[in-house]
């Protein structure tokens, strides 16, 4: 069983999820998420070493589509929904981070 979720852990998770929390929210969420995880401790504690995981309820495989071009969306309709557009592209503020 893992250690209890800490306030720092919540802050880390919030950063990963791109959410910013006030100090008060951090306290509240630490308590609430901790309670849910405590509740889930029964599952975390089970010995299931020999059990295979089920990612999907219905077993299907090889669902494929033919490589045939279909219609695209109308650009004007798409861009009309965008918060900011320039030169037929989606405009975003400066990107800090790795060049790729």
């Amino acid at each position, binding site marked *: 069983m893992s250690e209890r979720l800490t306030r720092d852990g919540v802050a880390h998770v919030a950063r*990963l999820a791109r959410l910013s929390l006030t100090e008060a929210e951090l306290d509240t969420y630490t308590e609430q998420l901790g309670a849910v995880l405590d509740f889930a401790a029964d599952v975390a504690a089970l010995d299931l070493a020999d059990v295979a995981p089920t990612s999907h309820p219905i077993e299907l495989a090889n*669902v494929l589509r033919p490589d045939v071009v279909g219609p695209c969306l109308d650009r004007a309709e798409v861009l009309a929904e965008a918060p900011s557009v320039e030169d037929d592209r989606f405009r975003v503020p400066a990107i800090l981070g790795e060049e790729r």
Partner: protein
Amino acid sequence: MTAVNLTHEPIEGEHFHVTSATTGDVWEIVVGLEVHCELATATKLFCSCPNHFGSEPNTNVCPVCLGLPGSLPVLNHQVVELAMRLGRALRCSVEPSVFARKNYFYPDMPKDYQVSQFDRPINVDGWLDLPDGTRVGVERAHIEEDTGKNTHAGGSGRIHGAQYSLVDYNRAGVPLVEIVGRPHIRHPDQAKAYVDELRAILLATGASDAKMEEGSLRVDANVSVRRVGDTALGTRCEVKNLNSLRSLGRAIEYEARRQVDLLETGERVKQETRHWDEGAGRTRPGRSKEEAEDYRYFQEPDLVPLVPGPEWIAAVDAAMPELPAARRARLAETAGVTPAEAAIAVSRDLDGLAAAAIGAGGDPGRVLTHVEHDLAVDGAGNLDPIHLAALVGLELDGKLTATQAKAVLAEMVATGEHPEAIAQASGFEAMDTSTLEGVLDEIVTGCPDEWVGYCEGDDKRRAKLQGFFVGKVMKATKGRADGKVVTALLEQRRVAAV
């Protein structure tokens, strides 16, 4: 960085060593390449938008590749086919595979996760043989989706200092295969040869058009160094932004020197991503992140497992074209050369022509020379190998000079005529020595200073003036003289003169 005078030995065998001038330690480079290539499908990986480079921005998009709420991916059959072709060409085993989500935020990634094969890739455990005989292991070749394209605007136009960016999602969702090579490469030239060979395989299998300049083939290099004799791997850096084979070679060499430099001065190599700056000729660290990446991989619940049956795999194998390595071996045997020497003919896709011309009696050396250097790839397909063999025969018989042969070859490609007919029509005939002597007489007389310089100058000056006289003769004879004969005649005269 402390300046240490580093030298490297000349290329020797398979290995490229960096020798420290201060300690005398000898280091070897260890390189593993990760190559992303866009598959040559009609449509994208998970939707029916065209997979097409160069369209107007944001025109090849739909709810799926824009990551709009509610959209769902459906795997393209042809992606699987091409990925398997590539995998089998790389001697991989095709395994049941699943897609996973790699979660991180980036504006060119519409869903803010990338769908990729993580712990269960389609192709595993293969290899690729380089023309020099080196076998480079391939850990895996898995399917994943490409991102859109950011254009950085304002400021420098580069990402750092840009005021904002513009995103085009035409490329988002284009199918990629990432080929993860094992760290078996020991030389920058091997790295280049690996990419070259991979490109040849991609083209041969029709999996990709493999254009580095258009970004349909992208190479990242994991570079580390270790003292020769060490077996453990050193700490590696991943070098990105390698836009050409030249960059790849230079970046590996630079990075190896940088790392040796660090280690020799008692510092550590930090495991990081570095970007190659072609202009500056160096790698630079990427922006360091606040915390380590945590991609939270999990199985993509909107897709189902991919389990190609044995029949499908067998059909891929049966339809496999002859691969470059096999073609090199075949031509090498026909021509009596090494596979490495047959490489250019194969890479130019002219090995069939060469083999046929050799089979028709053409001298292998001359045939290969023409195939490697003189023939344009376009249109060479019309060339009759018997004619090529005949051309080589005329050359060897001294009836055509090398320059004339080239001209005749060009005409052969253009007209399909027999080389003898072309030579005759063009007035090409072997220029006899006495005619050449006459031409030389006139030229030498006309350029007395140069002649003295040729006879009495040092080697460097003589070499330069030799070229001068050969050029004059060629001009006077409209290229009909054999350069080698002219050089010999000049040398005879010089010896006689001094």
